[in-house]
């Protein structure tokens, strides 16, 4: 009934007369101090292939934005692969309902908040503040509000199914951003539920050009590479350390947040590997506790994810959920745009570009 809901929403948006001021852009990555050290046996290992060993559950969220002068709609879709009766489950869908954050003038937000037909909307941050014209936030913050909640909801559904195994998440297992401790708490609650149900959570991080975990002295020494650490990122280190041809696993490394603040205890230790597939790089990470629990199997998980890489240079299960999540948000955005356009509500040029991008994903090209 999303189409119905979009029609109702568009009626409210048509009444918004006040233009929203632009949001600030996202701050630089707020990485906490951490230490990275190679674990015993850490090296560059060639992945030779092997059998199709694992049948993990995989979770990924996709985001798209549709905006005009008087509103911004942040559409989030989450796909879960391998959960149960169907190959792929979704939010919105069988796993959950709230998928759209709305930034608009306060009076509009208050109106839609009261409308029972719009129960899929998020109009406030998790700290209770409205996403109105005065919102002290970035686009990413708003997306994170919906995305982290939806993904965590999905992870809890995985935990509820039980049975144990692997739960592969597209992205890091948790954010290391101080300002979003509340989101970290939501995510870590879900991860703990997963672990309680016998699952090991595994993160696959595709965007690593801003990450500098391998730029630590201990990591560079492990690979015996010399890099000017002022101009360093993980992709660069991997490109130097791994041969150009073939699939390579680099790790494991243990990451520990260091500091005296008690809040550091919220960030449990992680173990990660970098994967180089003919020069294309992604990171596989898991909690240190899961790494210990899985023993030698942990690295096999990373190797298997590397071996199943697809034509888009990402592991198979991540590609499956990513493709489904993107198609889902594409469909939602197309439907939302149709509802908004039918009320003659103006859109930004970027939103029109986003619409064409959604059309491409919709038809699968």
């Amino acid at each position, binding site marked *: *009934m999303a189409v119905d809901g979009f029609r109702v929403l568009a009626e409210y948006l048509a009444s918004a007369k006040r233009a929203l001021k632009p949001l600030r852009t996202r701050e630089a990555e707020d990485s906490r101090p951490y230490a990275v050290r190679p674990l015993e046996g850490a090296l560059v290992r060639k992945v030779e292939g092997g059998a*199709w060993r694992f049948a993990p559950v995989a979770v990924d969220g996709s985001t798209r934005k549709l905006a005009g002068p008087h509103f911004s709609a942040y559409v989030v879709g989450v796909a879960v692969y391998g959960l149960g009766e*169907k190959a792929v489950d979704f939010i919105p869908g069988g796993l959950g309902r709230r998928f759209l954050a709305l930034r608009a003038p306060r009076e509009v937000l208050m109106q839609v908040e009261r409308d029972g037909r719009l129960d899929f909307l998020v109009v406030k941050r998790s700290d209770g503040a409205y996403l109105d014209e005065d919102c002290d936030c970035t686009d990413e913050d708003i997306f994170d509000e919906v995305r982290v909640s939806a993904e965590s909801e999905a992870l809890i559904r995985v935990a509820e199914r039980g049975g144990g195994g692997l739960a592969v998440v597209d992205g890091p297992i948790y954010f290391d951003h101080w300002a979003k401790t509340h989101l970290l708490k939501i995510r870590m609650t879900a991860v703990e539920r997963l672990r309680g149900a016998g699952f090991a959570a595994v993160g696959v991080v595709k965007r690593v050009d801003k990450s500098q975990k391998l730029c630590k002295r201990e990591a560079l020494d492990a690979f015996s590479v010399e890099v000017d650490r002022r101009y360093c990122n993980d992709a660069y280190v991997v490109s130097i350390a791994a041969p150009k041809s073939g699939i390579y696993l680099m790790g494991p490394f243990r990451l520990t947040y260091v500091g005296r603040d008690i809040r550091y205890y919220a960030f449990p230790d992680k173990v990660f590997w970098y994967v180089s597939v003919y020069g294309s790089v992604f990171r596989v990470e898991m909690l240190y506790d899961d790494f210990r629990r899985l023993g030698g199997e942990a690295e096999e998980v990373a190797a298997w994810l590397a071996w*199943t*890489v697809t034509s*888009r240079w990402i592991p*198979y*299960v991540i590609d*499956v959920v990513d493709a489904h999540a993107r198609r889902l948000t594409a469909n939602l955005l197309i439907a939302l745009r149709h509802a908004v356009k039918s009320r003659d509500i103006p859109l930004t040029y970027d939103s029109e570009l986003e619409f064409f991008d959604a059309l491409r994903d919709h038809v699968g090209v």
Partner: protein
Amino acid sequence: MSGFELKQRVEAIRQKVEERGLGEVLGRVSPGEVASVGADERRVVIDVDFDTYLRVGARIGEYLGVATILGSVMLGRVVEVRRRHVAHIAHIQTLYATVEDLEGLKTPAQIVLEPLTECPIDALDCEPTPVYTPVDPLSVVFRPSPEFIAKMLGLPREGILLGRLYAGGFELSVEVRLPERAMYQHVLVVGTTGAGKTVLLKNMALSAIYTVRNATVLALDLQGDYLLTVLPPEAPGVYQPLDQITVLMPVTRHLIDRHRENIQRIATRNLGKEYTLLDVTDERETAELVGRALAELFVEETYPGAKILDAETKTEDKRLVEVVAKVDAGGRVFTLRLLPWAMRFREVYPEIPRFFPFFSERVSMLFRRLLEKLAGKDLQDIDAVMKMVESEAAEDNKRGSVWKELRLHKSQVDNFVRGMNMIYETGLFDVSYAVAENKSQRVFAAFREPDYMELEGLVAVDLREFREAPSVASAVVYRVLSRLFEARDEELARGAAPSPTFIFIDEAHYYFPQAGAREDFNKEVVETVVNKLTRLGRVRKMGVVFATHSPADLNDLVIQLTNTKIAMRSEPKVLERVDMAEYAGELAYAQSGVAVAKSFIYRSHAVAFKTLPPQTRHRGV
């Protein structure tokens, strides 16, 4: 209409489907595809979730129902089933690993349905129409009950039982019948050896006896199949075996010669110890004794181990008419009415060119005159006639010969003489059993043709004697069919309603070959018989069921004049010959007993069915 109201409406439709017992709900019309109902294309795609798909499967050819949002309920046939792995849906290709991801199989099955007929969901007693109303995505899809399928296909409720509806590789509990009126427009059954033609024909014959009042079923029985319809099958069937069978047994001179000693032995035994057949001087009594002996020999050969409990023999004009015997075959007691069949040359010679297809057209026209000129007053029996023919043939150049007088070309003389020799060799004329060697003491048991008016129930023409002699078999068949036609014609002429007569002709190409297929066959004779039976038979309530494994060898007229075609397992070229090439996919590798009936009588034009198991004893079982 709000989304909520729409949801309520669809839910109400789903409830109606379940409450009215239309069938089990399986899924929805796919929202991701165009559901098209138009003049050029009728195609509805259905999504069935993986668990339902695993549980109930999906099969090409099966029937599904659709209850639409506009309030129609439709029946459709599955024409395609699509299965896709999630990797295909997401356009994913692994670079190195071979995908063995079983989770990816849990995608909905997509079933493509061709809508056939529809009715309003609130008026299910309607006469189904072709599909005129649109099918909306998310319409409710269900697996229909047998009653719903029968109703929506408009299957006839009465008529000859062909079998049970066959869809998606399964037999459904829906009877497929061919109405009596369609039988009079004639039926052609094609199928390769072992496809189940004979079982179908025998079951149809049985059904005709049980369902059509006063029906006479005449079966041309080259292999002895119909003779077993009085015996029970391995497992009980829908129909009981017949309690009575009439067997029309051509008695040839060869048959008499072969069984001479046996006839004498049996007749003597039946007379008691004190007398032999030689002691009997009365021709009527001789005919009765020989008739009884023939009946015993027939039972011995046809129903091994069976015995005759008692028998009554009927003669007329000192000639054997019939033997009616109570037969016990392993506890199964039935009545056998045996009609020994032979012809007297003197009585039938003018008609011979009409049922012996050996003579050219010119010779056929002159045949009667030729014979009468040749034999004159001596036209008593075939032996005398043959002497005259041979004598005349030996002097064919003599001035004043019959050939010269009638201005016959040498090839026509040859045709006539050759034809007469063939007729003679058949041994079908002037057949009798002579008891004594001494001519002065000879007593004859003679045979005749039956009264075709008195044939009733199942009548098997026992042609086993002619398995290797198609020409003779054809001559017998043409004669019997012509006489039967004349009997029905007479009924019609008298103003009486003709009794329904169904003629079952297995291996029809044997009797009705394609023009030119056999060099000695006059196609005019063949086609005259076919024309008479089919075109003129209709109003005389005569229906013919032809069957063949080789329609290429079958006369074109049979194919043209049969309005119902039933195809069983066949090669595509065979199906093409009977204009059923579109069913090659279903029939090329079909199981035995599976058939498609194509007839004007069916709303859907064609119906697939599976024959019932043999309803009586069957040779192949």
